């Protein structure tokens, strides 16, 4: 049974801005669904429409099989955690937690019991008699969570609940929220712009861009089978390497030419992407995840591995691995989407630097024992079975 169903939901703000366009999905009972996308893509708008805080311009929204388009927030059986936490400053933590229950006119003893239970789940017992101003950021975040879970609602809505925490606390709360959500089994719609958060927390992840839904799938599926260039570039860190090339089929397979190099794709590889054949002799964008690139001096030969040459521009040694930034003689597969993502991820400079002069930048994930050095011309092996191909005009993935 679906708990929340969105059917062709659109939101156009009075000033004409499209907040959300034709959004449809349904959440299963107990599902953790994450809405992710760059700033301004409509995540908050979508969430607020489900909450009833924003009017729905068109489409139908159902919660527990009841259409709620015109139902007030208070009657939707939802609980929401705000990005700002929105704790009531004049009430003690205890009263903050009890507030939704008091509004339901629940008997006092029952309220106390439920508050105590929520407090113990979130470890708030010690601070129940403090005011929000006397709490740390992490504690406030917990209280906000607590106020949502006392309700035992049909749906939790969370709008970037972790974005105000420092990095360490964020990672800790990430797993804690997941744990609590699983424990309570309440369907959760979770908004974030952080794709790592989306991937680690979500049962399914919906990727939005400019008010449009791009893809909704399990994290692994999004990672392995992105629908389009946008999803491919957005999901994964470091991002997928995207280059322009020309594909040329022959009797044994295909040659992918870029810059002054060629990657040979044998029939086994091209058969993974049957419709690639219709792009014969045309320019396409191809993508390779950083972990599908191997240090030629370490890797075993493998018939699917094809060698390319690149110049190392920077090495980030992370201990467990080395991120090798390289430049390669090719056009970067840059579309407006990709620029937007690069801007979000703070990688705009390197991207712009590679534009026009047919020097593209890329990243490879090598094991720590790799001995490559900066400014060295190295040989990199490409796992061709895991390559991605995109239509350069539409950005769509080329699969079937």
């Amino acid at each position: 049974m679906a708990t929340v169903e969105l059917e062709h939901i659109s939101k156009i703000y009075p000033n004409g801005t499209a907040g959300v366009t034709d959004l449809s999905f349904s959440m299963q009972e107990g599902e953790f669904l994450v809405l992710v996308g760059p700033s301004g893509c409509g995540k908050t708008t979508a969430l607020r429409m489900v909450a009833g805080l924003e009017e729905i311009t068109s489409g139908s929204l159902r919660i527990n099989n009841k259409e709620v388009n015109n139902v007030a927030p208070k009657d939707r059986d939802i609980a929401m955690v705000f990005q700002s936490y929105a704790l009531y400053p004049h009430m003690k933590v205890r009263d903050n937690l009890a507030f939704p229950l008091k509004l339901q006119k629940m008997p006092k003893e029952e309220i106390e019991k439920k508050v105590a239970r929520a407090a113990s789940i979130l470890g708030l017992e010690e601070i129940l008699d403090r005011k929000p101003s006397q709490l740390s950021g992490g504690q406030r975040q917990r209280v906000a969570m607590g106020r949502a879970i006392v309700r035992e609602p049909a749906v939790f809505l969370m709008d970037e609940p972790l974005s105000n925490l420092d990095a360490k606390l964020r990672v800790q709360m990430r797993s804690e929220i997941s744990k609590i959500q699983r424990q309570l089994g309440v369907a959760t719609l979770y908004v974030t712009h952080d794709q790592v958060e989306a991937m680690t927390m979500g049962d399914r992840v919906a990727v939005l861009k400019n008010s449009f839904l791009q893809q909704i799938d399990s994290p692994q599926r999004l990672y392995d089978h992105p629908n389009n260039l946008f999803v491919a570039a957005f999901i994964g860190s470091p991002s997928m390497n995207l280059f322009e090339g020309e594909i040329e089929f022959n009797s044994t397979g295909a040659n992918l030419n870029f810059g002054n190099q060629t990657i040979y794709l044998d029939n086994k590889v091209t058969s993974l992407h049957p419709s690639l054949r219709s792009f014969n002799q045309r320019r396409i964008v191809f993508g390779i995840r950083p972990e599908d690139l191997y240090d030629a001096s370490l890797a075993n030969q493998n018939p699917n591995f094809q060698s390319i040459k690149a110049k190392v521009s920077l090495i980030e040694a992370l201990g467990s691995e080395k991120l090798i930034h390289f430049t390669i003689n090719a056009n970067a597969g840059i579309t407006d989407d990709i620029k937007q993502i690069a801007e979000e991820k703070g990688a705009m400079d390197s991207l712009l630097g590679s534009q026009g002069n047919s020097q593209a930048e890329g990243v490879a994930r090598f094991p720590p024992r790799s001995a490559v050095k900066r400014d060295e011309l190295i040989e990199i092996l490409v796992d061709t079975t895991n390559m991605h191909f995109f239509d350069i005009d539409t950005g769509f993935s080329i699969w079937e």
Partner: protein
Amino acid sequence: MSKPINKILFYGFVIAFVLSSLFPFYWIFITSLKTSAEASQITSGFWPSKLSFSAYNTVFTQDNFLQPLLNSAFVSLATTVLSLITSVLAAYSLARLGIKGKGLILGFILVAGFFPIIAMVGPLFLVFRTLGLLDSFTSLIFTYLIYTLPISTWLLTNFFSQIPKDLEEAAMVDGASRLQALWKIVIPIAVPGIFTAAILSFILAWNDFTFALSFISSPSHFTAPLAIVNLGQSQFQVFYNRIDAAVVVTTLPIALLVLLAQKKIISGLTAGAVK
């Protein structure tokens, strides 16, 4: 400010300024504690030669000053309550409901609040005479509202605008109606602003002399300032000590009110609400 001489000059000036501002109050206070005979002497001293509470006694017994005090209290309280109820709702609407031309409305409201009192007296007199409301408390309350409503509304609109919208939305998601969110969340948080508006309204009503003088004629309806003027005068003598005693008992409640309310008017009450 670094040189000692500058410091001395600065504090010297401050002390002189404070003393000269406070001196009239001091003079009123000690005069109220003098006997009639001493108070009427031209060379009356800086300290009563003999402390006497007879002026206070006379003011409440012979002059029946309690009645005007109660009248003033009633008119001021009624003004304050009516003004608060109306301005809270008006300010909330202006702050939250995205009303078109809100800036214009607020500007107009502010201007209305500063309309010269003397220009209002004549027209209002005619209005109240036509309505048969002259010499009534109603006329005063209505008139005071003309001044307290704009100021309160303007002040509270600014106050409400500063309260994060998230808080109300959280309350509404938590199961509150808009009015419940206003009553249980917004108003408690806006207490400092509401207190300020209340005190301003109360003081404005309590201190008014011009309108009371114009509209009220029967002594039983006199407010305190009006009563003070008509007090302690006989054909042969002005009883300064009694006038000043009445001034002291009229001023004291206001002073106490402000001092007590000061504790409530602490800013930063929303600390911890968001982030």
